[in-house]
């Protein structure tokens, strides 16, 4: 495995910047530029980079879709949220529509924000392409077909002319897929969700989203510490604050940045990437959560440093 690319990082529902939010950022940037000398292209780039991510960037809006770039020629994807649409377009732009490709797609679960990108995933409509869709739910195929039935969508699943195969994985066991060792773990979420541990050539990536940790059960903690063990990257559901996750939003099926740090520290993981951002959070809030999480990691560190990131649409992490 070489790299992870994030195509959709928002939890529950896609979001977009509003015109008012964009305008406020422009005002901030222009005000700051009054005293700056921006005579060269480099000076402008440097000024923009110095504005900070909540002004000069955005964590973005698409729902869950993450690409793992492996050493093979096949594509590997986690979830089919709305981020699957730009991913599919990029794949077609790269190869051309007439060049058949294989896509291995691992589904955490079948809630709508994780499947809504499939009807807009153009490679699925192109004959010659092959989609291998993996998951732990018995309703895997039915759920993906059903969302395209009338009156929910005007194009039937039967219009998809790629070779589409559904493969049910056994939770708790490992499978050899596309040159990777893939281990599946059942997670606490409404209707269950599944986490995936991908291992190839000494590199390990864990995708663990839509997963609540009760904290009251040491055996549950142990399962996840083992699942995250020595991972190079853990993509983790950090949707809520800890206070919310264990009070007003208990049993909502999500976790917090705090638990992400603790599990990764216990597991000896090297990089925690906060994922599945709360749709009510603006960019400044997510940036503050990231700063807080980095600080928590720093003041509670007992072993090696844990790198902490917050995923955004377009982020690439080299392994």
């Amino acid at each position, binding site marked *: 495995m070489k790299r992870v690319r994030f195509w959709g990082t928002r939890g529950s529902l896609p979001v977009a910047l509003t015109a008012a939010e964009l305008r406020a950022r422009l005002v901030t940037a222009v005000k700051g530029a009054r005293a700056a000398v921006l005579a060269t292209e480099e000076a402008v780039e440097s000024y923009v980079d110095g504005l900070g991510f909540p002004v000069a960037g955005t964590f973005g809006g698409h729902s869950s879709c993450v690409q793992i770039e492996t050493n093979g020629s096949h594509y590997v994807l986690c979830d089919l949220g709305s981020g699957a649409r730009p991913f599919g377009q990029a794949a077609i732009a790269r190869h051309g529509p007439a060049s058949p490709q294989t896509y291995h797609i691992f589904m955490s679960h079948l809630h709508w924000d994780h499947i809504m990108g499939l009807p807009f995933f153009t490679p699925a409509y192109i004959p010659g392409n092959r989609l291998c869709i993996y998951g732990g739910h018995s309703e895997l195929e039915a759920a993906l077909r059903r969302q395209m039935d009338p009156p929910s969508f005007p194009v039937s699943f039967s219009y998809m002319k790629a070779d589409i195969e559904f493969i049910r994985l056994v939770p708790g066991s490992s499978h050899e897929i596309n040159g990777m060792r893939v281990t599946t773990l059942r997670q606490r979420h409404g209707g269950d969700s599944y986490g995936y541990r991908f291992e190839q050539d000494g590199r390990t990536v864990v995708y663990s989203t839509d997963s609540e940790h009760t*904290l*009251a059960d*040491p055996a549950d*903690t142990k399962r996840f510490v083992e699942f995250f063990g020595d991972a190079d990257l853990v993509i983790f559901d950090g949707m809520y*604050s*800890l*206070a*919310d996750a*264990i*009070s007003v939003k208990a049993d909502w099926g999500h976790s*917090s940045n*705090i*638990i992400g740090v*603790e599990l990764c520290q*216990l597991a000896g993981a090297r990089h925690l990437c906060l994922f599945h951002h709360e749709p009510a959070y603006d960019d400044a809030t997510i940036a503050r959560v990231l700063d*807080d*999480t980095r*600080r*928590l990691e720093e*003041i*509670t560190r007992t072993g090696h440093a844990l790198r902490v990131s917050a995923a955004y649409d377009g982020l690439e992490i080299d392994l």
Partner: protein
Amino acid sequence: MEIMNRVYGDMIVVAPTGRIDHATAADFERAVGPLLDAAAGSRGGLIFDLERVSYISSVGLRVLMIASKALRARGARIAVAAMQPVVAEILEICRFSAVVEVFDTVDAALAMSPEAAASRGPAMKAP
């Protein structure tokens, strides 16, 4: 984990020692559980003296959350006091300032109850 309890009027002060983490949180929860009825029954409250706590993890904060829900539902109060800087920062990052009241010292926390403040002298062992 060593946990010392004292009663001041209608308030109970709980003073754990060391790290409250995955290894010790169960002890902490077992020690706090029986105090909730007593603290709520007096309509006073529970004060966690964290002066000798060097670290608290999410499982320890869960115990504070359980105590907060139990006490506030019955009109009693819950506070933390005398936190070491690291512990104070952990609570702030975890957004727990809305879950428990925060005081610099145990005396300041006791002052929220006139009855407790008046009995700040010799303390009685808690039930």
